[in-house]
């Protein structure tokens, strides 16, 4: 496929997240433009259009040693962790609430939701702000890695379990240069209804 892994965008490890994402999206846009012009010479336009449709535009991040990804259009911004306010009696996977420019949004730890081991905060920890059913939600991740494009052709359907994560939280697994990128099903990971499922798993 037209995807060129050599031209992936490496995210800076620090800096204002909006800028990171902005810069990354711009750079990613350039990749698309280049691959687009390459393709235009080699293929007929119909094929090209079909290929473009199947291109996934992703933000990848680490939880522990595994690399996960979300589609970029679901991500509003990425912010540094400056602490949060705990909410007593909230579900365990809710770390607390933060102030996002005057809005109070919950911060979710996807590790706790997916029953993975919790890791300590580091200077690379970030909160990925996503939109789920019209509401903003922060997802705590160990570090944000890169913005890349992945052809849906290299994404395999979710197995029952990947790296200890229940398959129902996963949309698919992408393979890229021997790397394994786990595409999260954001609505499932962030969904309230998954709480019951989690309880059921815990009981087992």
């Amino acid at each position, binding site marked *: 496929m037209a995807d060129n892994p050599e031209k992936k965008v490496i995210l800076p490890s620090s800096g204002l997240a909006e800028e990171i994402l902005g810069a990354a999206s711009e750079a990613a846009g350039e990749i698309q433009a280049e691959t687009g012009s390459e393709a235009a010479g080699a293929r007929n336009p119909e094929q090209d259009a079909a290929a473009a449709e199947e291109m996934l535009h992703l933000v990848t991040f680490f939880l522990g040693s595994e690399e996960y990804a979300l589609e970029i259009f679901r991500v509003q911004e990425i912010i540094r962790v400056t602490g949060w*306010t705990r909410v007593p009696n909230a579900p365990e996977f809710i770390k*607390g609430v933060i102030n996002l420019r005057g809005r109070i949004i919950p911060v979710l730890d996807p590790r706790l939701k997916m029953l993975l081991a919790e890791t300590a905060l580091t200077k690379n920890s970030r909160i990925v702000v996503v939109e789920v059913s019209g509401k903003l939600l922060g997802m705590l991740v160990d570090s944000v890695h890169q913005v890349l494009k992945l052809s849906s052709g290299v994404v395999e359907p979710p197995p029952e379990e990947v790296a200890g994560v229940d398959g129902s939280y996963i949309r698919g697994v992408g393979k890229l240069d021997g790397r394994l990128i786990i595409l999260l099903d954001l609505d499932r990971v962030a969904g309230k209804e998954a709480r019951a499922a989690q309880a059921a798993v815990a009981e087992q």
Partner: protein
Amino acid sequence: MEDFDVSGLIKEYLDDARGHLDRLDSALLELEKEAGRGVDVELVSELLGALHTLKGNSGMMGFTGIQQFVHKLEGLFKMLLEGSCMVDDALMERFFDAAGTLRGALEQIEQDPKAHPDLAAETAALAGPGPQPQATNGGEEAPGVKAARSKADSFRYIGEKTNILKVDFERLDHLLNLAGELVIHRTKLTQVDARLSESGQDREIASELSEATALIHKSISDLQEAIMKVRMLPIRHVLQRFPRMVRDLAKDKGKEINLTFRGEDTELDKTVIDEIGEPLIHLIRNAVDHGIETPQERAGKDKSPVGEITITAAQEGNNIIITVSDNGSGIDVERIKEKAEAIYPPEVLDSMGRENLLELIFEAGFSTARQVTEVSGRGVGLDVVKKNISRLGGIVEVTSEKDAGTTFTIKLPLTLAIISALMVRAGMELFALPLSSVIESLKLEQGAIHLINGREVIMLRDRVLPLIRLSDAFGSGAPSGRQYIVVVGRAEKKIGLIVDGLMGRQEVVIKALDDYVGESKGIAGATILGDGRVVLILDVAGLIDSEYAGNSMKEVC
């Protein structure tokens, strides 16, 4: 009773009615355009909704002529929906005429609010099998409003201006949020200003910055206040629904009741207006049903046969006080006691004073009504009223005198958007306590805490005060150093919150916590401090409930 004063509402009625007529006009045009393609069910249904509101409002205002006319008009549209008549030119003409007739009637009212346009002839014409122009123009005894208007007049309404703007509440909420952000940025600016002043450099620039900061400070406060004002509505908006209700209920019961309002222009935040209606309905229904006696009973007691229900509203600081009083039979404390015998041991009841016994009517499952009626007395009601009001951060109290009447007093914050709060520290975390529920605060002396049934209490002025350690309740870290007790609640339901620090009072903007974080018992919401930190606002009523839920009545008294 038939003629309650609605003159103050005429302007709003007219404005609203014209809105419905505008909708009628545009829907009619749409209907005419689509005549060939059958009836647009959605369009007509929406139209019926608008007409229904217009009919209801007209009835409430006493314009029965208009009410009946609109009723007939509704009938025609319903026939359209049912398919029992077809859209043709004659019918459309009748519809447009009807809209014109209504506009004419509104105009009459505007010129003379006392006018009660009589649309009997027009109504009859509307209901007739076909267009009957004779009926509308002919009869001399009923000149009708249509005849009074020239054709040129009938389009004058297009040029009319309106001074009232309907704005989606969410937009106002967004405005308030933006103003809240400004407050946060202002704090940062103030910090920079302070640092520059301290550094002693560039004194001239520093003082200029100070000045600018002070101005911004003032502008932002003004802005916030202005936005809050926009959200305020007179309580009349809620009260205006009641005369009709009281009239109907009274008629049902064969009672004569005079309902009076005082202070109906007192303004409240929309958030409170939205919530206050339900509790008031309960209280007023109670007054009609159980409070006011029948004329015969009243005569026997040497009272005027017409019962009085008075609703007053007044602002008191940051609160609004609403009272609902009747001069009816009053609450029979002995009957409460009788009923309570099933629930509480006699020694508890004997130790309760008159006030405490009266308070029992707010307990769930308490109703002293001899008869279960359709209106009230189903054993639910006052407990719900109390719950709703405390959820709003308010309190409700009752006083009653046998055969003299009953008064319910509701105290509510003026707004649910901004509250005065006492900031307290528990462990490492800050919490905001609504000042309206704080009674006093004191230092926790060594050895003052006693244990009763494994619960911590202190003796405060010879009363036992149950304690809650905030840092335990919310797991916010170990207590450190000197501790304080903040007494919260009211009357006999008080608790002491043990906190690790009192951080002063502050006005805070309440924001709801996303339901995503779950129902947090004891948490009413959150707010953002000047430095951007998020602080949780405690729900005192919830805390007290959870404390008292496990306790017997004995400890309460």
